[in-house]
């Protein structure tokens, strides 16, 4: 549907926030027959959804401290294996005990897991070394648990795709500037289209605030107060996989104690720092964070000490103070669903927050139940049983690929599951690789632009992994920018976009710019500035635009 038609519609429900929770809520609402709109101020999954480990928790991490979260996790873990097969890699995980850790904790841990319904098998350290050769060989204990890796970008997109398949509309780059209020009732959202500069009002019977840490501001627009406590976590990405399984530390959760194999890379994290809410948009990683992550990370897998770090990034987790103690001393890590009619006397407004990326579906179900209760809709939730687009029964996935496929096709199946069949591959141009590190073809880029709401290279990266390999977009970003320029019929925008993309890549490289990553950066500068003069092209554009 074209954007201008969306503006004229009236919706049953408008969801604010295009992270996993928002996307999941949009899907659930649409599946229950509600006329649904989702709005996102940036790109989908730019907030905490896209800024975590990519870990599909078994729940074991929370088993000792928060059994409710642990139970939610293991239940959702099993659900996602069924419904989001193409986003999940079933790696399993280890909780290792190192000589400096208390081995007695292992017993507490395993018992807590069993109480929460999480399978936890104590294995011999020798067996741990054999099934996961990268693990710290000094370990004195190991427990095997059903952790897995999940791609949050794919997961979010798959939810959005399904929402759209069931009649929902979705808009990215639409920022909520205010709520349409009629006395104590929220009747819609005031939007700013960041791409066109338009200001619009769209009406909806219920508005769901799924804006993560930014939800505090959305709630304020309705006159409701939520005390958010932003917890910042930084992570490092290594150039390739050193581990096959998720590796955790078997102790009370602390800094940098999880190493996750994600697609072609692996990720160590996180740090955890409470930060002022005003700073949640500054996601630059500091030198201190890098040092902590590396020094703790090598305790899990010593080879990280000599493995190239390609990128650092940080995210903010939306923790919520419980209503009876706004000081923040007792913070819930669980799911928080607020019906503001009951809480603040504001009708037609629901906030869903807290929780984890991992439990997005459950959060969506809870939020949708609340919406349905308001609208008198009695349709049951089916999101736990119905596979997401790409993960249907019989669809090819990473583990059953055969030699029939080219590198690009196989990489695409890994990313899009059965939807990879929609990628054009019948001619040599569509089969040409744009990103050689990650096997992204011209056809896949066209598919992403036409089907997955791609406005710029950063969007494209989230949908396809373009520029996510070790070179962080050396040649592919120019190829991809040219293609986008042609598909969008705007070459100047493509050039500016290319510069922005390189800047975005650099933001993550700078904190780890030594060794080969610095060489990579120098080569990129030599190509784009020295050889191509991209810096001049962009500054010329700037000058003309001023005139």
């Amino acid at each position, binding site marked *: 549907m074209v954007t201008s038609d969306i503006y004229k519609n009236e919706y049953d429900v408008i969801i604010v926030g295009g992270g996993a929770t928002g996307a999941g809520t949009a899907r659930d609402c649409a599946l229950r027959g509600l006329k649904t709109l989702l709005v996102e101020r940036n790109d989908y999954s730019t907030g905490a959804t896209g800024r975590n480990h990519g870990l599909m928790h078994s729940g074991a991490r929370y088993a000792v401290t928060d059994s409710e979260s642990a139970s939610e996790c293991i239940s959702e873990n099993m659900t996602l294996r069924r419904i989001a097969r193409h986003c999940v890699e079933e790696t399993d995980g280890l909780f290792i005990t190192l000589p400096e850790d208390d081995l007695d904790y292992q017993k507490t841990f395993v018992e807590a897991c069993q109480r929460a319904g999480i399978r936890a098998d104590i294995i011999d350290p020798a067996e741990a070394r054999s099934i996961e050769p990268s693990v710290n060989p000094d370990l004195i204990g190991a427990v095997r648990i059903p952790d897995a890796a999940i791609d949050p970008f794919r997961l979010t997109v798959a939810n959005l795709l399904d929402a759209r398949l069931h009649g929902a509309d979705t808009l990215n780059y639409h920022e909520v500037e205010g709520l349409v209020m009629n006395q104590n009732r929220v009747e819609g959202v005031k939007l700013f289209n960041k791409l066109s500069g338009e200001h619009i009002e769209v009406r909806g019977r219920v508005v769901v605030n799924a804006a993560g840490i930014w939800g505090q501001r959305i709630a304020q627009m309705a006159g409701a107060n939520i005390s958010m406590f932003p917890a910042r976590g930084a992570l490092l990405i290594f150039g390739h996989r050193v581990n096959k399984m998720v590796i955790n530390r078997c102790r009370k959760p602390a800094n940098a104690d999880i190493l996750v194999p994600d697609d072609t890379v692996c990720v160590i994290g996180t740090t955890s720092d409470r930060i002022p809410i005003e700073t949640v948009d500054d996601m*630059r990683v500091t*030198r201190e964070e890098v040092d902590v992550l590396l020094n703790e990370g090598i305790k899990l897998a010593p080879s990280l000490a000599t493995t190239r770090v390609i990128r650092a990034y940080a995210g903010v987790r939306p923790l919520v103070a419980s209503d009876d103690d706004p000081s923040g001393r007792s913070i819930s890590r669980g799911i928080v669903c607020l019906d503001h009619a009951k809480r603040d006397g504001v009708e037609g407004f629901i906030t869903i927050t807290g929780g984890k990326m991992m439990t997005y579906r459950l959060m969506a179900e809870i939020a949708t139940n609340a919406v349905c209760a308001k609208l008198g809709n009695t349709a049951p939730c089916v999101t736990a049983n119905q596979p997401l687009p790409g993960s249907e029964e019989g669809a090819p996935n990473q583990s059953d690929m055969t030699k029939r496929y*080219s*590198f*690009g096709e196989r990489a695409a199946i890994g990313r899009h599951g059965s939807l990879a069949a929609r990628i054009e591959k019948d001619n*040599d*141009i569509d*089969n*040409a*690789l*744009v990103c*050689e590190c990650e096997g992204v*073809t*011209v056809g896949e880029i066209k598919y992403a632009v036409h089907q997955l709401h791609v406005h710029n290279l950063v969007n494209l990266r989230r949908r396809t992994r373009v520029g996510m390999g070790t070179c962080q977009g050396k*040649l592919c970003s*120019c*190829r991809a*920018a*040219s*293609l986008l*320029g*042609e598909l969008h019929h705007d*070459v*100047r925008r*493509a*050039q500016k976009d290319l*510069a922005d993309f*390189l*800047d975005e*890549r*650099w*933001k993550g490289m*700078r904190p780890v*710019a*030594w*060794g080969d990553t*610095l*060489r990579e*950066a*120098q*080569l990129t*500068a*030599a*190509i784009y*500035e*020295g*050889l*191509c*003069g*991209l*810096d*001049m*092209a*962009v500054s*010329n554009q700037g000058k003309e635009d001023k005139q």
Partner: protein
Amino acid sequence: MRTDTVIMGGGLSGLTCGIALAKRGQRVTIVASGQSTLLFNGGSMELLGNIDGTPVTYPLETIASLPEGHPYRKIGADRIASLADEAKQLLLDAGINVEGDAAANHWRVTPMGVAKHAWLTLSENLRIDDLKQLPARRLALMCIRGFFDEPNSMLANGLKELGFEVDKHEFTTDEITKLRRSPSEMRAASLAKRLSSNNALQRIADQVNSLAGDADMVLLPSVFGMSDNDSYDILKNMVNKPLRLVATLPPSVAGSRMQAMLRHYFMMLGGNYLMGDSAVKGTLEGDRLTTITTAKLGDMPLRADNFVLATGSFISRGLVADYERVYEPVMGLDVDADKDREQWTRFGVLEPQAYSRYGVTTDATLRCAKQGKTIANLRAIGSVLSGHDTVKMGDGTGVSLLTALAAAHGILSDK
């Protein structure tokens, strides 16, 4: 093994220095650790393009105002003009057909259609001496179907902004169509290898001639001739309009060719070129370097009267940055670099980056030092030198050529 001079590094500066010495009868060994950064060069040399963001039109006049530590200041602003002439002649002698004048920069056209200052440009490439007097009015921009390493639409757009009328045509030939079957190898160099026969070139010329219409100049991507000028020369005669090339994204065909021609010239002069080897250690006796050990020659080190360090910057691993420091890996020579990692870089990707000015410390004669003590027979040239900024100042190739010649003169006059 003993030769008169051993040069560590086989890129533009190492080869230039080696050629200058071999021409004067020296026996020279070059240790080249892989291909050089010439393969990222689109076919132009820059003397000085920018100072503090301001384009430089007359480089020779501007050099005196460079900061003290700049390599040009070290070799002496008054010597630049004659060294520049000598460098140009050396390139011509190697068969590299460059045009340009050190007194006044011309404009080269980049793969994205940006006009950038340059000193020397291959005669086959599109070059603009005066932006108000373009070399053609209407250009036929010939785009190879499925070749993504030339950003065609950006190039066309840039050319239009420069004032050209541009007709964009897409074409293919049998050879190109066949190459497109490979999803990953549709690169400039692969094209150049497949488009070198007379038949292949004739098929291109036929396409070009039938599509060019009333354009008064034809532009093709620079995909002709990995090791010599033959392909372009043949094609030029087959195309019935003036033909110019535009650089592509790397690896560059023109850069490969310049590298090959310089190497060929050096070997013709009797030089030894050890490709794929690298210096790993040097032995000092007093203030002199006596031997260099290489990875491949192992326990038979290279001996020489003089040594030259032309190992390049971080890209070429002439400098290494690790978690803690920046250092020169062969000898542990003194370097000009910030100690604190936070200072190496800045946030914006297009901002000037401090690391690009890092390099080894030298005195005015380009001699290196270790722990403050000058090494009498070790000179550094090219990108491994500190105090210049290839990316922001547009001085990299000029520094490579001119410091190479200055070092060669120094070595020859030592005797």
